[in-house]
């Protein structure tokens, strides 16, 4: 292919082409290794906001979810985005599946829709390394597609528990990103809240048919942190997982009234569309 007489311009062109190609290939390899860190550097650090711990909070109207009794790792870390290194296996809390959020680093996201299309949410979070801060960020509804146009997610009645100790929040509703700093490094915590304004009725469909979007409130964690999703309720019809290409694919498994997403989703794309049949007003 490179036979024939080589002029200086040819040599320069080929050398430049080879160098550019090799640089891009090296960047590709580097990005596959350090991509998330690079992106985090480019987007800047999360803002800090300190909240104090308190003695008690009222119980939340959430499905019964036993708190994890696991203590944080002995090695504290200040980085809010630890790696997803697997830790030693632990027993899952009673009634909950083993996996991300219970026995492995990750999040177990549990949702139960009510008759008004709101979701009672519980997030069990287990990180590979303890952190001193975590970010709470409302759902990015853009990735849900046009079916949920008009939804404006807001999380209210937020309760945060770290290592079984309640954490008092300065604001217990989240409509824009906010940081929470723990008094002590923790790797295991639980968030309960009501997710509102995420359900939109589906026009030209069965009466009561609606779509809702759910996803983790906890942010500032590694983008590849696995998220398992469980949705409970007799009004639930199906689950769909939007992808990077904005296609919504059915991804439900299990039996009604308890459906799970059929695979762990990486945190960066953990958004699930719930198809609902909202009941008639009583």
């Amino acid at each position, binding site marked *: 292919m490179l036979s024939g007489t080589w002029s200086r311009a040819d040599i320069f062109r080929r050398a430049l*082409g080879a160098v550019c190609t090799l640089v891009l290939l090296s960047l590709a390899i580097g990005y596959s290794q350090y*991509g998330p860190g690079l992106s985090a550097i480019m987007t800047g650090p999360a803002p800090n906001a300190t909240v104090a711990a308190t003695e008690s909070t009222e119980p939340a109207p959430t499905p019964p979810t036993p708190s994890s009794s696991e203590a944080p790792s002995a090695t504290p870390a200040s980085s809010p985005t630890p790696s997803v290194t697997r830790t030693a296996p632990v027993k899952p809390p009673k009634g909950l599946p083993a996996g991300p959020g219970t026995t492995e680093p990750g999040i177990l996201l549990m949702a139960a829709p009510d008759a008004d299309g709101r979701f009672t949410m519980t997030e069990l979070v287990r990180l590979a390394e303890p952190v001193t801060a975590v970010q709470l960020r409302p759902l990015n509804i853009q990735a849900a597609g046009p079916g949920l146009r008009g939804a404006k997610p807001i999380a209210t009645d937020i309760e945060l528990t770290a290592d079984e100790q309640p954490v008092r929040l300065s604001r217990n509703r989240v409509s824009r990103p906010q940081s929470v700093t723990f008094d002590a490094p923790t790797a295991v915590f639980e968030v309960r809240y009501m997710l509102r304004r995420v359900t939109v009725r589906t026009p030209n469909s069965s009466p009561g048919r609606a779509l809702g979007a759910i996803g983790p409130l906890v942010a500032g964690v590694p*983008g590849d942190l696995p998220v398992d999703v469980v949705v409970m309720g007799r009004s639930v019809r199906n689950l769909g997982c939007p992808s990077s290409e904005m*296609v*919504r*694919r059915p991804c439900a498994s299990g039996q009604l009234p308890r459906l799970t997403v059929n695979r762990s989703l990486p945190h960066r794309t953990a958004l699930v569309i719930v198809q609902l049949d909202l009941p008639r007003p009583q």
Partner: protein
Amino acid sequence: MSPVLLEVALGLIRIVTYVGYVLLAGTFTFWSLVWPEGRSDRRLVRLAVIGTVLLVLGTFADPAIRVALGGQPLADVLTPVGGSALLVRLAALVATAFFLVDLIRSPITGGRRVFAVVVVAVIAGSMVVQSDAVGAPREVLAVVAISGHVLATAAWLGGLVALAAVLIPRDHLEELERLVPRFSLVALFSVIILLVTGIVDALVVAGGLTALVTSPYGLVVLIKIGVLAGMVLLGHFGRRYAARLAFRRVHQPAELVKNSRGAHNLALVMGTEVVIAVGILATTSMLVMVAPS
């Protein structure tokens, strides 16, 4: 930006990327499998250059739109795998841009053929990695199906565009006897692969036959199949016209053949096929947007 406008913008960029891929990969495949001597044809070189430019544009525009207009975090858009795939694609495009002059210096055989095939495979691979096949249920099956689909698209649609670019101006009618049978063989295999992989992918995406036939996604798949069938039918007529022309070329003066009604019909059929090919790419872009709920 509203989600609808965002989807429209992303859909348009997808079409740009698909057209770029079809032009570049199709021309390279055409040179490699059908007409290695055609590397000196200026129209084909132009197709490869336009394809490269469109692919570079699509590669940069998609993440830029998602971040700038969609408000998605950069880390969400450029995932380690997705970002690496884009960089690998850019590397293949840069190599194409710098070495195309060397590639077309001699017939596309031997090392040149290997280079062309590797470029096509790398670009196709980068598209597969970014598709929803990765991470889908039955991942291996989905990835194999999408890979076959993407490569067969380059061979068939890209080859068709290249063939049309050569034959519609009626400058190379003397090549009819050689090109049409070779391309017909490539097209036949490609269509079979497209049908099989398309059905498999549609079933995997929809989550089963029932979900497929009852969803908007299934409707768009049906439209695409209809358009595809139209193209296959047109291809059949095209082959007939080409065979007649090739026969006349042997028995009649070249100028007479060039201005004959048969040559006109062949050009018309091929032009229509190319237009429908663009329709198929647009339908494919729609398929990515439509979701089975």
